């Protein structure tokens, strides 16, 4: 067991966490504006955008993976454009993995943020507009600092969800060692070759990290609620 542990390859974990960090950072920027606009929108078309945003939750990862794979590959205009103009291949490498993860984890960032923004008292935002502040300034200085628990939830769940993704990563990334083989795929492959000891160690590490991360979120949110005593 100890030998196995010493000899274990930790690159899949590094890839998983690198992927999750980059995806979370990109999604935070994108979702901040998306969630804010959705929360403030009174448009008739809002449900359409909300449904599209939530699609990755209900779609089987293989379906999502297939569409992403197809649209990034050389067979689609987009994939061809990137390859011809920038010389970048978008599938079966880390870049493709990041793009796919951004689609896959989008609702996990957007929904908590949108919920947080919608729960803010409308008067508070109006007070900021009346004080002469733009929507952007209101978002950054008033709305965002007052949804800390939602913000924390959004970031952590997005990160954890990206670490845990399997189907999409396998389809778009193709499990290339040291490039696109993430921890979740590594476990799958270890089980397939019946190396149960290594699979146990990998899985154990994943469970432990996930538990600690979630525990921290709940402790943080509890403290926030105690300190703020709710809004207003």
């Amino acid at each position, binding site marked *: 067991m100890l030998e196995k542990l010493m000899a274990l390859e930790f690159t899949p974990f590094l890839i998983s966490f690198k992927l999750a960090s980059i995806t979370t950072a990109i999604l935070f920027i994108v979702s901040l504006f998306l969630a804010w606009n959705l929360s403030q929108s009174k448009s008739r078309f809002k449900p359409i955008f909300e449904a599209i945003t939530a699609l990755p939750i209900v779609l089987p990862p293989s379906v999502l993976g297939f569409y992403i794979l197809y649209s990034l590959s050389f067979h689609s205009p987009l994939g061809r454009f990137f390859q011809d103009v920038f010389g970048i291949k978008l599938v079966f490498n880390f870049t493709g993995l990041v793009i796919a993860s951004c689609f896959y984890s989008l609702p996990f960032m957007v929904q908590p943020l949108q919920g947080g923004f919608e729960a803010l*008292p409308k*008067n*508070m935002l*109006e*007070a*900021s*507009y*009346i*004080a*002469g*502040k*733009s929507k952007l300034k209101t978002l950054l*200085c*008033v709305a965002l*600092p*007052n949804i800390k628990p939602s913000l924390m939830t959004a970031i952590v769940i997005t990160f954890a969800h990206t670490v845990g993704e399997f189907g999409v990563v396998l389809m778009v990334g193709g499990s290339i060692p040291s490039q696109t083989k993430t921890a979740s795929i590594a476990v799958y492959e270890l089980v397939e070759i019946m190396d149960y000891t290594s699979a146990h160690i990998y899985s154990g590490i994943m469970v432990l990290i996930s538990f600690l991360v979630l525990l921290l979120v709940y402790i943080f949110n509890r403290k926030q609620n105690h300190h*703020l*005593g*709710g*809004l*207003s």
Partner: protein
Amino acid sequence: MIKIDVSKELLGSLGKMDLSINLDISSQSFVALSGQSGSGKTTLLRILAGLESAKGAIKVDDEVWLDETHSLAPQQRGIGFVFQDYALFPNMSVLDNLLFVRKDKELAKQLLDLTELLELSSRKPATLSGGQKQRVSLCRAMMNRPKLLLMDEPLSALDPLMRNKLQHEILTLHKKFGTTTMMVSHDPSEIYRLSSRVVVLSQGKVLQDGDAKSVLLRTQGSQKFSFEGELLDIVKVDVIFIAIVAIGQQIVEVVLDESEAKDLQVGDVVSIGTKAFAPMIQRLT
């Protein structure tokens, strides 16, 4: 001078209602808006603030805030707004709430000093009492030296003692800065004390418009006293009847004869008035 001529279709408690208001408000005046809930008071304030759309025109001195073609954004109107639920920014200290509006430390300190909040400058809103929060909100609204200060039932969530104190502070600030002010209020003593003019709305229209005394005094003809109240009960005692009426926070008894008692029903809104007599007035506290 503020010229208001706006209309808007509203969905009120009694179905569709047309808000249609035409008012001229002179500079530095203090106007109280009164009327039953659902009569369009808050909507009128929100239209003035640019938070709600409306048809018509709003002109403030030479500035056009609203006409057929465009509506000035709330950001550009230069107003102050005090909400009933304070609407402070919980992530900022008292002082930062004020400075967020305008980076003018001197004015902020002056306002906090006037409202006795200077010691609480660095506190977060969540740690303040209701009265303190509303004072911060009032100071914040004064920070951009507004052309028009709008207050939507600013004191209705506070207890009577705190209300008195804040009425005094609102008056102090009004006298010091001379800001044209519109305040929604239901409290006659508050309206009388603060405002120079009362506008009563009903079903989206101006029902009464005048100085506080002429609008608020509910006497007719030679009546000296007149109170409105709700008839709670009629009790028969020997040959007479006694009506029990709630007036404000007090309950009074009035003697009725049989014909009067037959005419009235429990739950009626009644007016109790009296003529020529010499009332006694005594200090209680």
